[in-house]
């Protein structure tokens, strides 16, 4: 399945875009992370990063569909 992924902060710089499309093998957040880390190995250099599905932090193996809004959340630093 191909999904669209939003990116912010340093993730946007790693992807070179605020939004990318990527093919994933297993249709969950782990599958997404695997695919992203293969294509963008610099993601693995971050302190950590989260996946958000429909504006909520997602746990490991959260199922995702093409209708979901998916975003990569690098370490936040607001305030």
């Amino acid at each position, binding site marked *: 399945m191909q999904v669209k992924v939003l990116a912010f902060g340093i993730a946007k710089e790693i992807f070179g875009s605020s939004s990318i499309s990527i093919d994933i093998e297993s249709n969950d957040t782990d599958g997404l992370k695997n695919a992203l880390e293969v294509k963008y190995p610099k993601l693995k250099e971050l302190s950590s990063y989260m996946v958000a599905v429909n504006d909520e932090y997602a746990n490991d193996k959260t199922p995702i569909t093409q209708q979901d809004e998916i975003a990569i959340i690098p*370490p*936040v630093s607001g305030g």
Partner: protein
Amino acid sequence: MIEVKISDKTLDTQACIDKVLSPSCGGIDVFIGTVRNATKGKQVVRLEFEAYERMALKEMQKLGEQAKKKWPIENVLIHHRVGVLGIGDIPVVIAVAAAHRDAAFDACRYIIDTLKETVPIWKKEIFEDGEVWVAAHP
């Protein structure tokens, strides 16, 4: 009342305070974050803030709700700035009004501490000789 806002305009501290005032409140605690001229001894030129706006507003709203569950507070306001900020500019204002001051202090501090951990907002520090996304790398 819980009011959350993300804005690319200058935050108006007095307006924030006026919004949480209430005749049944005796104590208001306000936290104002400002852009410092240096970080770890290095001169800062400017900061750039970026938000995943819809999710950030949702997380800010949650913070307000959590604080109201944890402490007897009446009004909570959380305003966060995005865009390019110079030294002395205000990225965040949090104002909490309660009948008694202890709850206002506790809740205000909880909100800024937790905001920095959970709300999807990012800041890039720009120095004379480079730039860095804060907290991105170990």
